[in-house]
């Protein structure tokens, strides 16, 4: 009788310990995920390549902020370079899903025709169009 009671108590203690271990495991999981994702949120002196419709585009900035899975923000002095153009600007937002990059800060663009200066830009890479906003000056070689 006493043996049976002891066995039951031991089983209950084991179940409680297992339950506690599972609870501790769950608690430990949360901070780990947070630290991991925080490391991916911002990177300094960043450069990488993005594959889009216009081919391979090299991007770089003083600081990269990842907003979500599809959106990144290039903080500070930034650039986008591919075989068609080189865009040098500041604070550039990139939507990787829609293939749109934009900035409302002054921008300098160099392409095979010449050099362009504008107050901001919106690059609709999927449509093959770049809209330069504000006063624009485009000095060409021909």
């Amino acid at each position, binding site marked *: 009788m006493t043996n049976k009671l002891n066995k039951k108590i031991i089983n209950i203690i084991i179940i409680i310990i297992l339950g506690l271990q599972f609870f501790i495991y769950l608690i430990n999981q949360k901070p780990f995920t947070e630290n991991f994702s925080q490391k991916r949120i911002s990177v300094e002196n960043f450069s990488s390549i993005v594959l889009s419709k*216009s081919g391979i585009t090299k991007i770089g900035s003083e600081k990269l902020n990842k907003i979500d899975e599809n959106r990144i923000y290039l903080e500070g002095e930034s650039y986008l370079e591919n075989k*068609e153009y080189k865009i040098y600007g500041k604070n550039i937002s990139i939507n990787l899903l829609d293939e749109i990059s934009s900035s409302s800060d002054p921008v300098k663009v160099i*392409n*095979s*025709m010449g050099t*362009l200066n*504008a107050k901001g830009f919106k690059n609709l890479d999927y*449509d*093959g*169009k*770049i*809209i*330069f*906003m*504000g*006063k*624009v*000056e*485009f*000095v*060409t*070689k*021909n």
Partner: protein
Amino acid sequence: MMVKLYLWGKLNLLPKIKILYLFLCLIIFSNANSESYVKAGESLIWDSENKNYTANGDVEFSNDKFIAFADKMIAFYIEENDEEIFTIVELFENVVIEFKDEIFKGNYAIYTREDNIIKLTGEVSIKSPTRLLTGNELIADIDNNKRILNSANKESLVEVLLENNAND
């Protein structure tokens, strides 16, 4: 002997410096001439698929031939030897083209690089130091220095002698 050698060397060196200077001037001059620009007050759209640039608001376009002003401009280009060259330039609304001492005005203009011809339509005028002509269509052949002014009717073709000519 030393003075003679010095002078001989100096005399030989001077023409070379002069030639080099002239050569550098020619390079700088030719580069300055080949530069053109597009200015826009509101926006400029680069459409790489359709190979054109659309400029909006207080547009100014300049090449080695003329300076043009308009509200809107569409410039088409081609790729040649890894370079893009404007081939057709269309100008819309309040078009003013300054070519040497002449000023062309119209509602619409199209310039083709291949034949160097500017065609203006709408309420067209051509102003030179001596006269002012108005009509409906102006074809300015830059290479052959020809101007053809057409009008829909006799009333719309007007010739005005300017003050400079009247005093002569």
